[in-house]
């Protein structure tokens, strides 16, 4: 991921998170504010309901008292207190009285609780209203809620009872108003609020008739445990207030619903604003990232370019220093570091040259000293033979000249090797079969490994399948392989197995081949592995230290790589990879 992308993502994430946090905080605050407002409105409405309930209760009491003190009730009382009471003639009296006092319900109940006349259900005369005959001081009792039975069902009434003396008997007047839609409509309901009255004696209505599933669930909950409850969903906040009757039974549930549409609208607005601000933030982030890239990442990219140049071998590459900030300081440090590295490299090259010359001198001295010493001995033997045994001088001379000539050949050979290494020609690339080249080399050494007196070495050639022909100089490659095989045989003086393995390395966009030469000799230490390809370095007593240097030179001239893997006691494997 580029620095510019990181900057863009960072700025965008920062803006979005900030906007989200602000939006969440604002939304939470607004929600809380609305909930407080809802609670206040609900409380106000409930208080208003209770006040209206009390006011209507007082009004009902006043009207029922007016009925109780009317001439009609007095006539009934007089009749009932007589010797031959006859209440039958008053069966329709309650309807007229209820109309006069605008009462929804009115029952005139005789001693013993038997209905004389019923306004709400005229046919119900003669039936019992036993609860009226209970020992209650009805004339000081207030209004209460009561379920009223009607011909076509039941209704909820706000009822007051007054007792009228009829001689030594008591006549009861029970009247009231129906708590119906008209009652609910009379309550001051703020905009966005809605009130409903669920009568507990009715079957639980379907959610759609209550307006929502929440209301239905709330009713169900309050029916099971009658207490005031408030529940909220995205659409509304509903408070359910249980209403009880005289016997503390749950008669109805008042549902006060506060619409949250306004809150939802505001939340939507906040969310929309947050999205807009977020989008603006992303855009701003994009602009800032571009600006930052132009002001911050360009020096960095230039610095990175300089680093790549240095890595590519251009030690003269320098980063432009355009600012005094951290990036400018970084460029200055880079330039300083590059200069120091160049100086160190030069010093190292000089040191390596000196070391190489010293090694060359040591090797030359060593290589030349070995044949020179026999030459000196031979010449000294000739001198001693001439002086001490002139008669044998001739014979000694012949032997000594033979030895001298052999040693001089040896010197010529040594000089020729050094000369060859110095004159490594450029490879002449042509299509070549790697497996065939390996077989040629193996064939060359077969006789050697089978020579009598030599420890047995088994040569195993594992030719890889589909190893394509490569473009290479076959002579140089054979030469490199010969050196590796020779090295491996030298590493196994006590015999072993020499394994040569070729394989194709076709990867994405490149075709390569590899050849591995493994021995089962003593192996090498890590230090030896590091210095293995250094010219004139050898672990053998009679080696020139040029074999592996020549191998590396060939591989390098073919744009290939050579690696060595070895552990003491486990043999050594050289791996050459070449472009096909």
């Amino acid at each position: 991921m580029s620095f510019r992308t990181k900057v863009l993502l960072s700025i965008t994430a920062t803006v979005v998170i900030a906007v989200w946090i602000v939006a969440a905080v604002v939304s939470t605050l607004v929600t809380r504010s609305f909930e407080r407002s809802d609670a206040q409105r609900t409380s106000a409405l409930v208080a208003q309901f209770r006040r209206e309930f009390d006011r209507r209760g007082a009004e009902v009491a006043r009207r029922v008292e007016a009925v109780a003190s009317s001439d009609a009730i007095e006539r009934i009382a007089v009749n009932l207190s007589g010797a031959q009471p006859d209440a039958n003639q008053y069966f329709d009296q309650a309807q007229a009285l209820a109309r006069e006092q605008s009462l929804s319900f009115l029952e005139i109940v005789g001693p013993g609780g038997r209905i004389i006349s019923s306004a709400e259900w005229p046919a119900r005369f003669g039936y019992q209203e036993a609860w009226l005959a209970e020992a209650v001081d009805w004339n000081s009792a207030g209004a209460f809620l009561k379920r009223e039975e009607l011909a076509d069902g039941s209704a909820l009434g706000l009822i007051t009872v007054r007792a009228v003396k009829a001689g030594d008997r008591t006549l009861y007047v029970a009247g009231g108003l129906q708590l119906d839609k008209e009652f609910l409509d009379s309550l001051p309901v703020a905009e966005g609020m809605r009130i409903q009255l669920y009568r507990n004696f009715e079957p639980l209505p379907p959610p759609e008739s209550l307006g929502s599933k929440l209301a239905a669930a709330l009713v169900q909950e309050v029916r099971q445990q009658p207490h005031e409850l408030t529940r909220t969903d995205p659409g509304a906040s509903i408070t359910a207030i249980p209403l009880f009757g005289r016997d503390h039974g749950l008669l109805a549930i008042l549902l006060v619903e506060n619409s949250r549409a306004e809150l939802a609208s505001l939340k939507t607005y906040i969310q929309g604003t947050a999205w807009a601000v977020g989008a603006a933030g992303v855009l701003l982030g994009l602009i800032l990232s571009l600006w930052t890239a132009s002001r911050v990442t360009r020096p960095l990219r230039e610095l990175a370019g300089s680093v790549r140049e240095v890595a590519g071998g251009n030690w003269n590459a320098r980063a432009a220093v355009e600012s005094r900030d951290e990036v400018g300081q970084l460029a200055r440090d880079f330039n300083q570091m590059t200069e120091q590295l160049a100086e160190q490299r030069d010093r190292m090259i000089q040191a390596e040259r000196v070391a190489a010359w010293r090694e060359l001198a040591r090797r030359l001295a060593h290589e030349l000293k070995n044949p020179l010493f026999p030459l000196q001995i031979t010449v000294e033997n000739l001198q001693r033979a001439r002086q001490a045994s002139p008669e044998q001088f001739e014979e000694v001379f012949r032997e000594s000249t033979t030895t001298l000539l052999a040693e001089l050949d040896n010197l010529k050979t040594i000089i020729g090797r050094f000369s060859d290494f110095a004159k490594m020609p450029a490879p002449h690339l042509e299509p070549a079969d790697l497996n065939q080249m390996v077989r040629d080399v193996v064939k060359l050494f077969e006789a050697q490994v089978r020579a009598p007196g030599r420890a047995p070495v088994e040569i195993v050639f594992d030719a890889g399948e589909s190893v394509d022909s490569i473009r290479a100089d076959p002579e140089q490659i054979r030469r490199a392989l010969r050196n590796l095989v020779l090295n491996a045989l030298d590493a196994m003086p006590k015999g072993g197995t020499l394994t040569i393995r070729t394989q194709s390395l076709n990867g994405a966009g490149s075709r390569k081949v590899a050849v591995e030469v493994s021995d089962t000799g003593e192996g090498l230490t890590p230090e030896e592995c590091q210095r293995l390809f250094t010219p004139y370095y050898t672990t053998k007593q009679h080696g020139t230290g040029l074999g592996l240097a020549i191998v590396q030179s060939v591989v390098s001239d073919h744009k290939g790589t050579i690696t060595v893997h070895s552990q003491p006691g486990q043999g050594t494997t050289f791996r050459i990879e070449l472009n096909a």
Partner: protein
Amino acid sequence: MRLRAWAWLALTSLPPLVVWPATRPRYGGTLAVDLSAAFNTLDPAELPAMLSPSIAETLVRINARGEIEPCLAVSWQREAEGKRWRFSLRPRVVFHDGETLNALNTGPLLLAVLKKTYPDVTVTSGGQTIVIQSERALPDLLPQLADSRAAIVRKTETNGLIGTGPFRVASWEPNRRLTLAAFEDYWGGRPFLDSVVINMGPARATADLFDIPFAAARRILPETVRIWSSQPRELLALIASDVQPAAWQALALAIDRAPLVNVLAQRRGEAAFGLLPQWLSGYAFLFQSSPDAARARQLVAPLRLAALTLAYPSNDSFARTVADRIALNARDAGINLQPAPAANGNVRLIRWQLGSADAATELARLAAMLGTSDRAAALDLAKPETLYEAERAMLDSNRILPLLYLPSLYGLAPRVHIRETSPKASALTPRLENLWVDP
């Protein structure tokens, strides 16, 4: 104090003397009548029962005890096993236009009426004798002839009505007012009243005579108004249209008729357990039963009844109240009966006007209404035991459930007096010719 008590006792004993005083009737004066039901025809069959016999008379009539008595015919003979009937017309009877009643002008009128009931009937007229003959017996001829549809009347070109009754039509405004004038040449003697003005529409308590329909709410009447009550002449009953027999029997057991009589009818009616009232059949007491809500619930429990509708006549507040009470009784028995002002329902509440004072005729009408006339016709309804058997069968058919008998009620102003003539006088309506008024 004792003197005042005696005076109070004397005064309370007076009303029967005042209401029907043995004083001599007074001739003259106009009687103002208010009738709640309007009518737009002077057809005797359509006229209120109180008016029809005062204008148009029949050959015979049925008295309050259900007996046939002479009217325009003074005597009759049943011949040939009831296939031929010979009637002797009352002499010196004239129509309101002065024409004398005789067999020649009566015969065609009778024939036209009787053909509707007996297609093969023939009427032979001669002098003051009319012979009615048929191929088959005519056992119910006399009740048929007593019906107002068999009134001997003629119509004028202006749709006026010319009969032989004690009053003639003086003026007529359909649906509004009918004025009757005393017929000076009435064969029974001139009526006491000079004229009778009948106003139609909502009955007012200010008239001399007015009908008092049964309504849900009691009507507040001036204390001076007396109430004249007829024999029960209306039956309130339930008709089953689509009710399981067990449910019907449960409903019959659930209904308590006492509150209907004592409260809703204010003791003006009678509990009906049979179809015909006691005064008409003489055996109605045999059908009496008591409500048994517990037994009704037992009958209903295994039925899994759906809600039933109880249809009652619309605009009839009394019927609605009765229906409400019936529904309440039914609910106590576990029957969901829903009253509704409609023409049809699972159960119908009907108000059946007794159109005849003859038990057999009335039962036949009821049988026709219930669709069981075939079975009734197979019986000789002239015998009380077969009449009872027929009525029992109709009740057991689970089609009809009697509730109440209601009388006709009329309010009488203090100035109105009724002359009791004979015990045979009709007790179904007050007879205008028997009324007289103070100045």
